[in-house]
């Protein structure tokens, strides 16, 4: 174990480029390969995703190992000092999101290995580009760079959403692309306004310069932050900006839906990162700006998600509304800006993402079982698939899957039991019932709302109206989610008896089991996970360390300039950029 840590330490800070570069190189390699080499691409994809997960775990250990609040890696890709060049930063929160991405992506690609990856072209490169965009968004510390990584992520997600083609996917894809293009315009407006006011796009520099903004510019600054936040709230599926989500996620193929369950949390991550940096309690006149808006938006989103779950007939829609519900919960808890509450929401985040992803995968298996073994549900066959070239379908001539034939029809005896148990576990985590991790996360949030200073030391404290509203909604939405999921379970598992056993393949069961096992591990290891989340929340709410780490990062002296201090990047800075 020490050798492992030493290896990570010796590779830092360059190792933190790997989550971006590895998918980029893998995707570029796979773009060069012909579509017939699907199995090779699949192998490369799985290997690359697995390696990415291992690297993310190493980075997570690296960020947490030091124990000091300042343990963050700063990388200057262009070797320019902080406010001028683009900066990549890894801290506990980034590393946590990277690991979560790795787990969900690995399960998703394993699941698609049985059939879905052959439903269209360029699935594997798009998948890797998606991972690259996600990793970049989690690692970057520059607002405009964030925009670029968002666009990479979105461009890949457009392709992945349309994967498999068909009428419903194209229709919902059209809406999805339109709203995301509009959101990108808002992002650009907000980012350029922030630049006009503060003269910087570096997140740490922004945090430093916001308390000094002149009073006359303060309103403009808040408008810019509001416009920027609207762009992120669209990604995070806050009501009333979330009507695109359920049709799009429901229409996507199952592994893509599972990956998309993570995508809404990118909006949450960005809000958490930028809001705690820019409008921390040390931000002078702008301290905690917009917190009430986040709380109110989150509360309405929670109610919307819960009502949507009650009204859903299809399992994929149920999973989509569950993603909305978890987004709303996170948003509302985020708006309070309380240290302990943030730790609770950080605990809730991974478990809810993994449970919703597992539910998307499960929905595919259950729907197939319900459709009596048919590959596609009836709703998917009423449109043509113009991009699905007949030559790409596996034929006996291509012989793509000779050993898969052995797998087909090998019925797992406990297939029905597995589906039922997995659905039950998803229900427990999403509804937040004991004993699983959803309960621990919700319980931590409830405790934090009632005792924000810790048990015993916050006597006499009463949560205000927003606090009571969140407590009520946390409990009420849990109950509604339980009712909705139980009803779906009854109709799918108990109501009909005269069906054959479901035909499952091992590669389809393993990803679901891994996702749910991760939730169980989080429950068993709740103490150490919670300590990690607490440390993450502490460093989030003390942005000074982040700012200091970024602004003090020194460029590496190059071989040419090492002897001549006059030509270091600091001396030849961009004219006027420091004003």
């Amino acid at each position, binding site marked *: 174990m020490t050798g492992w840590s030493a290896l990570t330490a010796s590779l830092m800070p360059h190792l933190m480029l790997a989550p971006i570069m590895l998918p980029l190189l893998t995707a570029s390699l796979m773009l060069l390969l012909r579509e017939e080499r699907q199995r090779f691409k699949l192998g490369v994809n799985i290997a690359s995703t697995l390696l990415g997960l291992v690297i993310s775990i190493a980075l997570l250990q690296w960020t947490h190992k030091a124990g000091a609040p300042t343990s963050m890696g700063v990388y200057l890709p262009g070797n320019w000092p902080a406010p001028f060049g683009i900066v990549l930063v890894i801290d506990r929160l980034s590393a946590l999101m990277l690991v979560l991405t790795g787990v969900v992506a690995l399960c998703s690609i394993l699941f698609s290995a049985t059939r879905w990856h052959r439903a269209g072209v360029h699935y594997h490169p798009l998948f890797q580009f998606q991972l690259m965009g996600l990793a970049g968004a989690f690692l970057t510390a520059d607002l*405009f760079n964030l*925009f*670029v990584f968002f*666009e990479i992520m*979105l*461009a890949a997600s*457009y392709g992945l959403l*349309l994967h498999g*083609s068909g*009428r419903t996917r*194209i*229709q919902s*894809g*059209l*809406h999805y*692309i*339109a709203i995301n*293009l*509009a959101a*990108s*315009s808002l992002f*650009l*407006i907000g*980012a*350029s*306004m922030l*630049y*006009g006011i503060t*003269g910087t*796009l570096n997140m740490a520099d922004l945090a430093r310069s916001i308390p000094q903004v002149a009073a006359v510019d303060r309103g403009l600054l808040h408008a810019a932050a509001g416009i920027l936040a609207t762009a992120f709230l669209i990604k995070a599926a806050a009501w009333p900006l979330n009507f695109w989500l359920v049709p799009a996620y429901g229409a996507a193929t199952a592994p893509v839906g599972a990956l998309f369950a993570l995508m809404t949390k990118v909006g949450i991550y960005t809000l958490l990162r930028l809001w705690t940096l820019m409008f921390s309690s040390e931000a002078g006149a702008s301290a905690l700006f917009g917190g009430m808006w986040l709380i109110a938006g989150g509360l309405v989103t929670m109610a919307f998600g819960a009502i949507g779950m009650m009204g859903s007939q299809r399992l994929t829609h149920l999973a989509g509304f569950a993603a909305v519900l978890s987004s709303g919960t996170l948003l509302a808890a985020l708006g309070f800006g309380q240290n302990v509450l943030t730790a609770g929401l950080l605990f809730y985040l991974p478990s809810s993402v993994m449970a919703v992803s597992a539910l998307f995968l499960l929905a595919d298996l259950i729907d197939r079982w319900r459709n009596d073994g048919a590959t596609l549900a009836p709703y998917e066959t009423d*449109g*043509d698939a*113009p*991009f699905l070239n007949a030559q790409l379908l596996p034929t006996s001539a291509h012989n793509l899957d000779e050993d898969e034939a052995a797998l087909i029809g090998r019925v797992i005896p406990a297939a029905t039991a597995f589906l039922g148990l997995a659905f039950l576990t998803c229900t427990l985590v999403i509804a937040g019932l004991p004993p699983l991790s959803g309960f621990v996360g919700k319980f931590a949030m409830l405790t934090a709302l009632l005792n924000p200073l810790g048990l015993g030391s916050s006597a006499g404290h009463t949560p205000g109206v927003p606090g009571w509203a969140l407590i009520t909604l946390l409990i009420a939405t849990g109950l509604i989610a339980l009712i909705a999921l139980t009803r779906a379970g009854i109709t799918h598992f108990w109501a009909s008896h005269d069906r054959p056993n479901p035909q499952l393949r091992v590669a389809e069961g393993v990803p679901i089991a891994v996702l749910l096992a991760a939730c169980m591990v989080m429950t068993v290891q709740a103490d150490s996970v919670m300590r990690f989340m607490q440390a993450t929340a502490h460093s989030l709410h003390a942005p000074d360390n982040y700012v200091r780490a970024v602004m003090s990062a020194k460029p590496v002296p190059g071989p040419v300039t090492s002897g001549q201090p006059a030509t270091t990047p600091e001396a030849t800075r*961009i*004219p*006027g*950029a420091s*004003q």
Partner: protein
Amino acid sequence: MEIVLAIAIGVFTGSGVWLLLRPRTFQVIMGLMLLSYAVNLFIFSMGRLGLSIDREPVLIEGVPQDLLHYADPMPQALVLTAIVIGFAMTALFLVVLLASRGISGTDHVDGSRARDLQEMP
């Protein structure tokens, strides 16, 4: 100059938002393009010291190196990136638009054959 630019941005944004809310896919894509023009112009106006008029874009010997004498390079870099990305996304949207038109037989954004079906050549 500022007032001309401000009016241009306003007209582009207003028309863009109106078109974006129309029910035909072609109108939607036109609205998105107008919106991106408006955003690109807006980024230009958001340099430090406001909109730079009659200032040098590249370094010239003998001119003091500050923003009073040079155009702010940052919005230009941002605009270039935004144009490229916006262009690619619009092209992608066009493909999806055509696919939707081909698959549903109507250019309505919801692909519905409801009362507003218009014959297309």
